[in-house]
């Protein structure tokens, strides 16, 4: 279900010019490379490339501009490793990093927390000045011993380095190696100090590499494989996304032998190389390990998109094609089974949302991946951008966005505010730091990292929730109450009562 539209490229170009004019010259030059308007793509194969999003990406943020990005630690502990539920993840360094990221990503799991699972806990070495001065290796050894005593059912430990570790020259690798031997457990040192790289992205990469170097081939993995074994890679089970995906993949006849890393156990990570295919959702954070598994173990990988029925159908068929007629047949049945649900959701919500405009600013995948889900509801994407995408992500974005779309990489607080003011979309989808400024302007908002405490949004079950949430955000009566009636007679909001 493709929605045809073109955005107001001239307005967007003017907005870019205006924000750049406010920077000191040096910074204006640097920021200019990150902002653009999507242009018509080459008419290659039909429907392939809709536009070109020609921006520079994955380079250092400009100091003092209020970048929205995080750090490598956030990419490793917060994203890749944190959700592995039967391991203890030590935030190694001062107390803050672990505290601020504690339980915030909504990686759902089932388990007995504190006993055999540890997802919503904050383990920290709580560095003090003496640890900085004398080094923290001895402390780390003691911490690992104490974890073994108090949390004996953990199936492994990771050491997530915070900034000071790399600066004071600690050897967390040696400690990990020794303690792994002593306790006969997997202990993974991750060099994800926050100053490394330019965003969360390098943390993803470092975390991927640590799986390659410290998990793969470290144990004899006994596992009876099957012809339809797949791993789901890069689904962090936010609000249960991975579960709403798994149920579909199982229905079409596949066996999900590992989920990385939402609701995962270490065993699921260890056996991954035995699967037939890696299905990758968040390409940005986990393509590295997929490429490695392809090279080393011959496991093919395939990108897919489970946001919104159009993409789900396309993805399911693409996946099925890889496995042949048996799976393809089941897949068509599954698509047909869910068609009435999809039709009913669209019939209910599309009339309430049709033509509403949306601006997005998210991490490394969703700024493109969710676009079609909005379009399935008749909504129009006018601007999008990534915190930490690379060039290959912007290339892929061209398959999603329409001509004239405003593109902003590593957007600054100032730019985003001015763009939103200038465009005045009907909905903004971004993060917690952006939520309240946008709502103050009277513009509906949904958090697109945490699903605003809702979800899942993946799969058919998730699409219904997504549609409901977009509707309740846009059509709530509060937006019509912003102006005191004695101040003005015009009212911006337009609520539609829930059905």
């Amino acid at each position: 279900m493709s929605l045809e539209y073109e955005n107001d490229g001239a307005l967007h170009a003017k907005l870019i010019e205006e924000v750049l004019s406010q920077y000191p010259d040096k910074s204006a030059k640097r920021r200019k490379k990150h902002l653009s308007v999507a242009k018509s793509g080459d008419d290659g194969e039909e429907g392939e490339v809709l536009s070109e999003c020609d921006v520079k990406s994955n380079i250092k943020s400009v100091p003092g501009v209020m970048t929205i990005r995080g750090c490598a630690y956030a990419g490793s502990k917060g994203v890749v490793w944190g959700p592995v539920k039967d391991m203890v993840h030590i935030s190694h360094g001062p107390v803050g990093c672990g505290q601020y990221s504690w339980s915030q990503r909504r990686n759902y799991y089932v388990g007995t927390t504190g006993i055999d699972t540890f997802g919503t806990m904050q383990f920290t070495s709580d560095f003090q000045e003496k640890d900085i001065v004398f080094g923290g290796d001895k402390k780390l050894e003691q911490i690992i011993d104490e974890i073994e005593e108090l949390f004996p059912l953990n199936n492994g430990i990771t050491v997530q380095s915070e900034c000071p570790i790399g600066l004071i020259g600690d050897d967390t690798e040696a400690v990990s190696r020794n303690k792994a031997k002593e306790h006969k457990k997997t202990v993974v040192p991750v060099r994800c100090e926050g100053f490394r790289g330019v965003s969360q992205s390098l943390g993803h990469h470092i975390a991927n590499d640590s799986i390659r170097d410290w998990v793969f081939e470290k144990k004899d993995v006994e596992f009876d494989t099957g012809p339809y074994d797949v791993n789901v890679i890069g689904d962090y089970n936010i609000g249960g996304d991975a579960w709403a995906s798994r149920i579909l993949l199982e229905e079409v006849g596949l066996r999900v032998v590992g989920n990385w890393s939402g609701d995962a156990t270490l065993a699921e990570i260890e056996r991954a190389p035995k699967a037939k295919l890696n299905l990758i959702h968040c390409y940005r954070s986990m393509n590295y390990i997929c490429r490695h598994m392809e090279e080393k173990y011959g496991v093919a990988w395939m990108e897919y998109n489970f946001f919104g029925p159009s993409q789900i159908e396309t993805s399911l068929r693409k996946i099925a094609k890889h496995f042949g007629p048996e799976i393809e047949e089941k897949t068509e049945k599954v698509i047909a089974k869910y068609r009435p649900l999809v039709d009913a959701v669209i019939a209910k919500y599309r009339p309430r949302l049709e033509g509403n405009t949306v601006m997005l600013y998210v991490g490394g995948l969703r700024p493109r991946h969710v676009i079609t889900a909005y379009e399935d509801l008749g909504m129009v994407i006018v601007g999008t951008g990534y915190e930490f995408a690379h060039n290959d992500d912007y290339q892929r974005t061209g398959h999603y966005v329409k001509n004239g779309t405003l593109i902003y990489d590593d957007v600054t607080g100032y730019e985003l505010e001015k763009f939103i003011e200038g465009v005045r979309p009907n909905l903004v989808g971004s993060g917690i730091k952006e939520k309240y400024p946008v709502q103050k302007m009277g513009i509906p908002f949904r958090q697109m990292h945490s699903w605003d405490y809702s979800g899942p949004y993946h799969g058919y079950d998730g699409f219904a929730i997504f549609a409901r949430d977009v509707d309740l955000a846009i059509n709530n009566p509060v937006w019509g109450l912003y102006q005191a009636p004695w101040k003005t007679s015009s009212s911006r909001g337009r609520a539609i009562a829930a059905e």
Partner: protein
Amino acid sequence: MPQSAEKVLDHAPLFREPEYRQMLAEKKLNFECPHPDQIVTDQREFTQTWEYREKNLAREALVVNPAKACQPLGAVFAAAGFERTMSFVHGSQGCVAYYRSHLSRHFKEPASAVSSSMTEDAAVFGGLKNMVDGLANTYQLYDPKMIAVSTTCMAEVIGDDLHSFIQNAKDENSVPAEFDVPFAHTPAFVGSHVDGYDGMVKGILEHFWKGQERTEAGGTINVIPGFDGFCVGNNRELKRLLDLMGVSYTFIQDASDQFDTPSDGEYRMYDGGTKIEDVKEALNAEATLSLQYYNTRKTLEYCEQVGQATASFHYPLGIQATDEFLMKVSALCGKEIPEAIRLERGRMVDAMADSQSWLHGKKYAIYGDPDFVYAMARFVMETGGEPTHCLATNGNSAWEAEMKQLFASSPFGKDAQVWAGKDLWAMRSLLFTEPVDLLIGNSYGKYLERDTGTPLIRLMFPIFDRHHHHRFAIMGYQGGLRVLTTILDKIFDKLDRETGETGVTDYSYDLTR
């Protein structure tokens, strides 16, 4: 198929549907390689024993579920309490994303701060260039009246010197020479967020007061609130009381408007806060009062050095603590406490008397920042309750001694225990081995509530999973009423839940309590 367009099920009901339960059970069985159920049950039961508690409390290195954050968070909160002030945190940028998120999740408000975005090259060569460029960008983009600089642990480890860096930046015209750029070094590996608050307030006062002549204005006072997640409600309530008394006062650091801006179509990046002119003038106050001693130790020392009288409190909450605060203000300013306030006090005492039978003898576990825990324990004892476990991860030995002194002052404190430096995993053992009726803390306490069944009352920063509590005061007599009601609601709700089984406990399900 559980999902439908008519009745959309989100995560809470969806995953309880049979399709998903079966899927998850099979996932566990076939792919997770879990420990056998019996082993998990045994370990779970073991963690509830005295034996486990002893091991748990004997931990020396590992910290699990601490109730404290790091210094720069306090500095960013402090800076938010001054007029048009932008926080500039020198060091890694991810930290700033974390402080902003943390504050926004609690206040449900925008939280602005910028970073100097130091990366690996800055780790090698120092972050001077980042400071020079960064200050210029912040000044030009965000039109602040003041930029308050603090540090992440990265900048502290490599030893960047803020004083000289800021001077350098001014020499390179990043900001005008006369533009105010106070600073505080806020290493995350020393103290906690309350010390970062202290450092930043002191840094700002030093910036404006250093080298200035003090001309004492008798009868005027400064009030420093400290790091307070309830600043929105509390600061306004205290100002109301001080206004009723007719006192001349200045709040030094007041984030009550910054973290409570109206929704009327305009996004205010800055709102309220102590005016810079008022900060300058505050040098002349007769006295500076700190509402939270452990948040302001260095600042108070500095105020004494410039010649001001000082007084400090431990979060004036409850009857006696509010009495003491008002009497101190009265004595310093030479103003009577008006009859209206005496009546307010009487109304709160009246409420406590009305409800005393439900509160007498109740046992509490309380955790949070040192001053809050002190205040809460004191108030609990005023209601006839017993503060069984009092824990502050960022409490030191001086705090421990003060707490013990407090307990010695009341028969309701005779069995009270104080746990300085311990974390919430330690609290879990305490609650299992020496159970209490109620737990007072913040949102992180919900895991303790789930594990131990102790009802949680959220009265401490951060509160993520309940909305708007921070908009209401918990200090003063009015605030005390709110705290009292909150505790009582929890007690009554629990009792109703426990007696609500038709045909079994109809007899205790009383209409009037």
